[in-house]
């Protein structure tokens, strides 16, 4: 039965704009301005979901972002679907579809509901206790748990929406546009502070815009009337920017805040396309004014979770703001006066308020008198002991509360009703405040945590600072604004406020029932189904820290982070353990305040913008010639060039043979290049490399090994002396940025006296490496006038030359053991250089090769790759590269560490070659090496670091690090694999041309 429960026309609801939407497959109607929750309530739909553990029917409880129950899946089955969305925050639009979560097959008939009747078997920690053993059963348990639980479904196709990030800076950021926030923002902006005011809702004004309590007056107007005029005036204020539908998710130190601005979620599908859906605002503010308000607390009593049980303030908002009656027979249950405001609001609209159950013994305020005069029955000193109605509340049972509030007396009265408004007082929303690092204190009188120690330039104003009455709010706000903004006058100086006097509230964290606690279900965390008895059980089992109780009972660990029930959990723990709340502290409030979608977090960094990548100037050629690419750091490097459907193995074998038999060409542009100049450049190189540099002649190249201060190999590369005070250093591709950083660090902090200048020139040059016996002939063709004789241009030397008009630097150096040249040109000529080499090399069948072949060729020569054959634990001695460590130099980075007792151990892992017994078996890189097969446990001697099938030697070769390997030459070892054992022999790591004859060939 669909029944329309609109009770008044509201200025926030556009009744001329009727909107149809679907909930759980059924079509309903609402109006522009409705949330999904208000529209469902107008259609008398309270049951919207099932709880997480017991699958109990649950209804809409609140009217805001703190909603624990009405969690829905938006637009299920589409690529715009989103789980875990609060129905209280979704603005409806034509075509919106939503469905319940946590239920199967439907919210009306849910198989998991049986858990509710089995609940004595689901105490706190149930999952931990039950499913832990036997361990092998976990997979079976998990299947059922995963099926019956679940918090919505993630989309299965990619998100069609655009998300954005923006950095913004303000003098003053005001968070929350209730009465405090509006007045704060207005006065800040009027005093020339560049101000931003944000609010998560689509309308400004918070709860005051529907505050019609006739006993509260501001300048003789109702607060609602008065504030609406203030809001109207905001439009004319310069320096003020207002963002609605903008929720601050995180407040970090130094007034850095992240906010999600919602731009299209309230629009129809056709209006969403090609627009930014959400924008993450990264806000830096000189001062932050928190006006985040307060959240109404529920009361904790037996079966306090049935559909139809709502916060009293929510019932009022639905009635006043949305014009919707949440029931036709409403009872309020309260410990303070705010329920009477809600009751009066309903009464004035002709909605039947059945009675008010108040745990206090009296209240003298005018509003209470008005309710009495209206003939609404008030049960003083009574509490609700139980409720009834499975899918919708149909009655409550009440009993007289004992004086100390711990038990009930007398006879039970049953009151029939279809809606219960619960008012447990107000909790300041201090979430963002504590995220900023600021500290709270507990106010024993008000029973709330309040801002205490600010760590940033910030203030908290209004109810988030514990001011709940309009007169207190305005008075304190005025003073705080003057202090923090350093201003003398404000608009608030001459405001006259009249308010109703409230009697103090009575706080009881857990209300008693006539049944023992064990037989009741007083929910503390609705979303995670944690009850007061779970918390008490945790305490009985010895948990003391609030953080441990939270995790054991899962209280506060849902998507709502326990915004409603956390205070009660603390109160119950404090009462049970007999400690003060202030001593107990709170659990940590973590960002985000409300959930963020991944899209918002990632912003534009999706697809090809996910990470930056670097391409060499020759890249287009590689692509045109069908190269496969591999990622090396951020570089896209040509990996191999398959032709005629070759596999990687076939291509690499062909390329490797060609490079040794005729000529190959490699794009080496990615190697890091650092230009080093200054009168102390040679001394600097002496200090950073293990070998000596002072005597390197101009025009000569030298290989260098760089260590960390701990003696471990850090990077390597060839450095060329271009002039008296000028060197060009090359680094590994992946290490370039770190090497530059390390060198700068030493220059700036340890050796500021050295006259040395470093410039990264990696991107300035393109490098083609010609490798093989025919490389010289090609170079001769493209630079005919360069004397390439060994006398003029020997191995490890450098020449400047010109290819046509293009200047180039040529180094005769080799990473493959072949006669090779590295030709460097200005980056923009890179592709041209490459094509010239290819053209000139045609007659020699020049073969482009990629990184894989380069790796294979250098492994044949036993050359290491830093980061592949080393892992930060290898010294040059471990690598059998003693020859590169200068004995004469007094000092260099890492020298002293080479003489530490640990680095001098004989049984360190050392680099060796490995040959397999069967030359066709190629070892897997990373495989472990052992000597004894029958030992248990077997000692791991080391592992394989590089392994290839060498086409030039026609056998499998490998490099490995092995404990004491240096002295194992010729020794048989084993590489045990899953189904077999591979016999290997320790060998010299230089497999090919040990005498370096080919370099000079």
């Amino acid at each position: 039965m669909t029944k329309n429960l609109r009770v008044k026309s509201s200025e926030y609801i556009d009744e001329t704009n009727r909107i149809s939407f679907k909930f759980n497959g059924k079509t309903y109607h609402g109006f522009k301005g409705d949330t999904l929750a208000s529209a469902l309530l107008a259609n008398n739909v309270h049951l919207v979901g099932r709880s997480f553990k017991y699958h109990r029917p649950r209804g809409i409880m609140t009217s805001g972002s703190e909603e624990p129950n009405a969690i829905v899946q938006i637009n299920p089955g589409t690529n715009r679907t989103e789980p875990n969305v609060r129905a209280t925050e979704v603005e409806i639009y034509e075509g919106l579809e939503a469905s319940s979560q946590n239920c199967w097959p439907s919210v009306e008939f849910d198989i998991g509901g049986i858990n509710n009747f089995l609940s004595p078997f689901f105490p706190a920690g149930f999952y931990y206790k039950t499913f832990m053993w036997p361990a092998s059963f976990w997979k079976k348990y998990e299947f059922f748990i995963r099926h019956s639980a679940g918090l919505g479904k993630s989309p299965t196709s990619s998100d069609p929406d655009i998300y954005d990030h923006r950095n913004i800076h303000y003098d003053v950021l005001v968070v929350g546009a209730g009465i405090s926030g509006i007045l704060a923002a207005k006065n800040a902006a009027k005093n020339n502070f560049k101000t931003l005011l944000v609010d998560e809702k689509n309308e400004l004004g918070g709860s005051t815009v529907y505050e019609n309590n006739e006993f509260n007056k501001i300048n003789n107007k109702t607060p609602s009337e008065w504030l609406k005029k203030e809001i109207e005036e905001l439009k004319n204020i310069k320096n003020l920017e207002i963002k609605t539908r903008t929720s601050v998710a995180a407040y970090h130190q130094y007034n850095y805040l992240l906010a999600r601005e919602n731009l299209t979620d309230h629009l129809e599908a056709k209006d969403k396309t090609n627009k930014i859906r959400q924008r993450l605002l990264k806000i830096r503010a000189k001062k932050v004014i928190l006006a985040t308000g307060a959240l109404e607390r529920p009361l904790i009593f037996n079966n306090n979770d049935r559909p139809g049980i709502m916060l009293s303030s929510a019932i009022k908002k639905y009635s006043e703001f949305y014009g919707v009656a949440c029931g036709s027979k409403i009872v309020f249950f309260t410990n303070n006066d705010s329920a009477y405001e809600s009751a009066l609001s309903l009464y004035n609209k002709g909605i039947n308020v059945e009675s008010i159950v108040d745990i206090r013994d009296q209240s003298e305020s005018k509003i209470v008198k008005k309710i009495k005069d209206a003939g609404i029955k008030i049960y003083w000193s009574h509490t609700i002991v139980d409720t009834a109605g499975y899918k919708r509340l149909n009655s409550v049972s009440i009993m007289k509360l004992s004086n100390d509030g711990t038990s009930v007396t007398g006879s039970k009265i049953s009151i029939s009703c279809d809606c219960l408004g619960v008012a447990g007082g107000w909790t300041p929303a201090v979430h963002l405040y504590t995220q900023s690092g600021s500290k709270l204190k507990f106010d024993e009188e008000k029973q709330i945590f309040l801002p205490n120690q600010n760590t940033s330039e910030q203030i908290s104003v209004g109810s988030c600072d514990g001011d709940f009455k309009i007169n207190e709010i305005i008075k304190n706000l005025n003073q705080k604004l003057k202090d923090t903004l350093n201003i003398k006058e404000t608009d608030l100086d001459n405001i006259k406020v009249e308010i109703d006097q409230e009697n103090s509230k009575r706080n009881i964290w857990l209300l008693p029932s006539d049944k023992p606690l064990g037989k009741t279900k007083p929910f503390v965390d609705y979303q995670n189904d944690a009850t007061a008895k779970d918390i008490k059980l945790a305490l009985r089992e010895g948990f003391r820290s609030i953080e441990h109780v939270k995790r054991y009972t899962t209280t506060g660990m849902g998507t709502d982070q326990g915004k409603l029930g956390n205070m009660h959990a603390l109160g119950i723990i404090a009462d049970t353990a007999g400690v003060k709340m202030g001593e107990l502290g709170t659990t940590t409030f973590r960002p985000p305040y409300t959930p963020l979608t991944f899209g918002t977090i990632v912003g534009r960094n999706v697809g090809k913008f996910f990470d930056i990548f670097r391409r060499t100037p020759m890249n287009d050629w590689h692509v045109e010639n069908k190269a496969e690419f591999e990622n090396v750091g951020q570089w896209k490097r040509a990996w191999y060039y398959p032709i005629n459907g070759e596999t990687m193995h076939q291509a690499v074998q062909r390329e490797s043979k060609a490079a040794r038999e005729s000529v190959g060409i490699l794009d080496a542009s990615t190697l890091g290049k650092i230009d080093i100049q200054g009168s102390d450049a040679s001394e600097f190189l002496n200090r950073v490399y293990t070998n000596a540099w002072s005597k390197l002649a101009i025009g000569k190249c030298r290989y260098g090994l760089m260590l960390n201060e701990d003696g471990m190999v850090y990077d390597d590369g060839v450095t060329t002396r271009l002039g008296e005070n000028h060197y060009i250093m090359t680094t590994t591709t992946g290490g370039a940025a770190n090497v530059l950083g390390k060198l700068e660090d030493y220059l700036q902090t340890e050796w500021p006296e050295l006259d040395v200048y470093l410039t990264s020139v990696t991107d300035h040059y393109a490098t083609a490496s010609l490798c093989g016996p025919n490389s010289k002939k090609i170079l001769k063709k493209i630079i005919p006038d360069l004397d390439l004789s060994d006398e003029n241009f020997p191995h490890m030397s450098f020449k400047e030359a010109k290819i046509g008009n293009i200047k180039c630097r040529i180094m005769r150096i080799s990473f493959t053991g072949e006669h090779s040249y590295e030709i460097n040109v200005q980056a923009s000529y890179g592709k041209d250089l490459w094509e010239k080499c290819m053209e000139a090399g045609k007659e020699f069948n020049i073969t482009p090769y990629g990184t894989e072949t380069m790796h294979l060729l250098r492994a044949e020569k036993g050359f290491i790759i830093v980061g592949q054959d080393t892992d930060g634990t290898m010294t040059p001695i471990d690598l059998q590269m003693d020859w590169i460590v200068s004995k004469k130099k007094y000092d260099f980075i890492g020298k002293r560490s080479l003489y530490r007792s640990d680095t001098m151990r004989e049984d360190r892992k050392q680099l060796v070659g490995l040959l397999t017994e069967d030359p066709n078996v190629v070892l897997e890189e990373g495989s472990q090496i052992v000597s004894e097969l029958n030992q248990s446990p077997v000692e791991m001697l080391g592992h394989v670091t590089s392994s290839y099938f060498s086409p030039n030697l026609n056998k499998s070769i490998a490099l490995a690090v092995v404990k004491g390997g240096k002295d194992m030459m010729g020794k048989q070892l084993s590489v045990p694999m899953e189904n077999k054992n591979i016999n290997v022999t320790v060998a010299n790591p230089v497999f090919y041309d040990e005498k370096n004859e080919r370099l000079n060939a």
Partner: protein
Amino acid sequence: MFLINCPYCGERDQQEFKAGGEAHIQRPRQPTELSDDEWAEYLFMRKNIKGVQFERWNHAHGCRKWFNMIRDTSNDEIKAIYKMGEKPPAQ
């Protein structure tokens, strides 16, 4: 996210900076004359204080200069920033 006042560039977001560990540990000028223990003291031993700590920072995505920072690690308050080679300001 800190707001760091680079002594060369002014206030910048923490994203632009790299932390470089404890400050005022000078590399020994004559490492070869140190015992293993003395060298290990320089190489490995670093303080990790809850409270006021002296740190090195680098404006890596800015001027690339190294500088020193005094920071209270318990609340991330930056108490002072000063250039390399300068003495820490009095606390």
